[in-house]
């Protein structure tokens, strides 16, 4: 072994590879915990930015007629809300969790490619900045929907289009680099005894998600590149006069877009599968079926994209194929819901906040899945498409699912990371406020959609007034309840309740996964030598 390596060992012993001083630390850090923290804080900030946009939308929709904003700005808000939440909040939050947790859970000293890891994060920030800059531009932010459909986007997008396109490019590069890092870490850095089928499910779901990301982000990049050349370099990809076809854009977009929604939900599944067994005090039910279900969902996600396009005029064979293929997804998804329920069955359950959020996730995500199944039936989707019904569908799969699970993850791991306990009473209050208001917010949107209220329109007919008002009230309660979360997080980082947590934090958690065998708070460097033994899922 060379001298350099020996020197490195020496450093590890004395822990003198501490972080750089001051703010520069965050610019140049290669430490997976620092980078995880950056991702999580950035996501939290974007969660509030995107939330503010949502409140603009709901304020305008509180009553019929035009109240606060002009129609173009309203559409900018729906567009930017979606982009900020998807690319700025939910995805980065999960990457942040991956950064913190994957090395801890598999017994690795850091991520496999630490410098690239730093770059992934800052590329994300740069991409979001490019996007945000359009808010202050002549013509305003993109108002064409987060899907950027041509020809609308080519005619109405003002000065924002090239910025939006390049933002997508940077976000794509960031995601791909992040995903490559995650795959290399998982496949190459596991503790010797951690075989693939002993990995925690969170690690498994991220392995598969990372694969999805590498496969789809270039596709999205290609699609928006063609928008750019159609607009500025005279190409005819999406213009029928030149022999192109605008519907082609939709195919490419949704080839990206459908797996993209699974990028947000698979790690959600992973965290839920990690939390539920701990509070049910049982091993996860059906570990291997969970792995296979995750893989099948990922596979299926590549062959169902046109269920977003039932109404564009596809050949009938296409409609039928995409309808049946979409329905298939319900099978592996059902396996998962069954397994979570069976894990809780006869468990010695306690209901700390992470568990409350996780149980709520299982119930409400199932509802989102069921409306998805309704929309997968092509003939009925002609009624639901582009109405508030689909808005209700995907918000049930994203807010009480992905976002709730992110909060559960925060409550679950913050004590481990900081060594401080959060305020359980306040956290439960946060949970109940969120769980109740999220239903006031989104449940009425099912009724509105079935009755025919279109999405992305700032005004509506008077018969929709009552439920819109209810939904808006729910939105404001939900939005302000999240300030409780912010308060709890800040307080926990700064000492929490004053009660120091044990290494295990949660009773018997170390039977489930490696991170709970480390000290709390977790030291800056961990697993310089990999752990000898790893937990097995049958204890």
């Amino acid at each position, binding site marked *: 072994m060379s001298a350099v390596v020996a020197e*490195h060992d020496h450093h590890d012993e004395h822990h003198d590879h501490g972080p750089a001083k001051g703010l520069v630390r965050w610019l140049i850090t290669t430490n997976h915990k620092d980078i995880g923290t950056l991702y999580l804080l950035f996501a939290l900030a974007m969660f509030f930015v995107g939330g503010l946009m949502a409140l603009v939308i709901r304020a305008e929709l509180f009553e019929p007629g035009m109240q606060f904003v002009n129609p173009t700005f309203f559409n900018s808000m729906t567009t930017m809300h979606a982009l900020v939440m998807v690319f700025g909040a939910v995805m980065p939050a999960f990457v942040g969790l991956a950064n913190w947790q994957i090395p801890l859970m598999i017994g690795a000293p*850091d991520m496999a490619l630490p*410098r690239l890891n730093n770059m992934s994060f800052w590329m994300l920030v740069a991409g979001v900045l490019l996007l945000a800059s359009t808010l202050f531009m002549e013509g305003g932010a993109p108002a064409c929907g987060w899907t950027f459909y041509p020809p609308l986007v080519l005619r109405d997008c003002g000065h924002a289009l090239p910025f939006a396109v390049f933002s997508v490019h940077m976000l794509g590069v960031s995601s791909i680099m992040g995903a*490559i890092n995650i795959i*290399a870490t998982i496949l190459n850095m596991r503790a010797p005894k951690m075989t693939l089928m002993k990995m925690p499910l969170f690690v498994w779901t991220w392995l598969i998600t990372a694969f999805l990301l590498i496969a789809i982000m*270039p*596709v999205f990049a290609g699609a928006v590149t063609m928008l750019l050349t159609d607009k500025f*370099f005279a190409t*005819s990809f999406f213009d029928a006069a030149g022999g192109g076809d605008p519907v082609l854009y939709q195919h490419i977009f949704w080839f990206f877009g459908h797996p993209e929604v699974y990028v947000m939900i698979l790690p959600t599944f992973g965290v839920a599968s990690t939390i539920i067994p701990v509070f049910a005090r049982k091993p996860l039910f059906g570990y291997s079926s969970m792995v296979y279900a995750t893989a099948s969902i990922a596979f299926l996600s590549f062959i169902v994209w046109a269920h977003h396009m039932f109404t564009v005029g596809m050949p009938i064979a296409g409609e039928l194929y995409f309808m049946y293929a979409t329905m298939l997804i319900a099978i592996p998804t059902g396996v998962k819901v069954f397994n979570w329920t069976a894990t809780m069955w006869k468990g010695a359950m306690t209901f700390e906040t992470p568990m409350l959020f996780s149980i709520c996730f299982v119930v409400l995500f199932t509802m989102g899945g069921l409306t998805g199944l309704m929309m997968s039936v092509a003939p009925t989707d002609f009624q639901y498409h582009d109405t508030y019904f689909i808005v209700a569908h995907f918000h049930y799969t994203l807010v009480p699912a992905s976002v709730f699970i992110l909060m559960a993850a925060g409550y679950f791991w913050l004590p481990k990371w900081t060594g401080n306990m959060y305020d359980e009473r306040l956290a439960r209050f946060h949970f109940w406020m969120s769980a109740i208001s999220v239903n006031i917010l989104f449940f009425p949107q099912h009724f509105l959609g079935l009755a025919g209220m279109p999405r992305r329109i700032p005004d509506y007919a008077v018969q929709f007034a009552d439920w819109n008002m209810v939904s808006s009230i729910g939105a404001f309660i939900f939005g302000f309840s999240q300030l409780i979360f912010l308060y709890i997080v800040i307080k926990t980082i700064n000492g929490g309740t004053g009660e120091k947590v044990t290494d295990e934090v949660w009773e018997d958690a170390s039977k489930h996964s490696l991170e709970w065998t480390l000290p709390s708070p977790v030291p800056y460097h961990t697993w310089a030598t990999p752990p000898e033994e790893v937990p097995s899922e049958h204890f």
Partner: protein
Amino acid sequence: MSTNAHDAYYIPHKAVWPIIGTAGLGTMLAGFANYLNGSAAGSTFMIAGLMIFISMLVGWFTLQANESESGMYNHGVGISYRMGMMWFIFSEIMFFAVFFGTLWYTRNLSMDWLGGIGDGPGRSTHDALWANYEAKWPTNGPGKVGGKEGEFESMGAFGLPFVNTLLLLSSGVTCTWAHHGLLAKNRDQLIKGLMATVSLGFLFVACQAIEYHEAYSEMGLTLGTGIYGSTFFMLTGFHGLHVCIGAIILSVVLFRSWKGHFTPENHFAFEAAAWYWHFVDVVWLGLFIFVYLM
């Protein structure tokens, strides 16, 4: 495998190049966007950003090469790098798949609909707007977009494109020959093989430049010549860009070989460049078949 990958896995600390590279790329793209919107300052920022980005590449890769030569990377680190490169190439494959998919969709589906063949729902565009349009590839669409007064010639396969195919295929051979030289500790063969590969690569780019020049000046074939021009230049253009990048990477590897870097056990940079080169090669074969021949 995961075993003993990290008893001495090298973990770098305090990296400055990533943030510099991000700043460069961000400046470049913001500048480009401003330029497209007609702002005068746009191109300045674009060039400044590009300069920063290039300095980052030089700085970061020099650092990596030095670390590698001083033996800081053990077997486990090498595996991570190889995985990184493989998945990066996979992402590039998906990027090209978009444009190949576009070509396929246009030629097999939307062409027919526009031309009124069959009775799918897409046919209504034909009936309502362009009832006289006869779909025939190559086309610049019912609106006769671009071309010389709407007319253009398509690019044949057996002229420069065929020469280019031979050039790239033989460059694949010379690259492998260089690799054999490296493994056999035959530095002369390594350097000669790489020199041949790089020259063939740049020759390819030169031929393509001539081809493009002919298309623009004589054939009425430009990026704006309807869907044929769009797909033709997008596919061959992005490929050409990748050939340039690959040739530059190989030049760096050549330079390092000449300085005495790489051993039969430790030559990740060479392998990565070779993989990339073969990938570019395979994409060209796809192009030759689907863009030029069919």
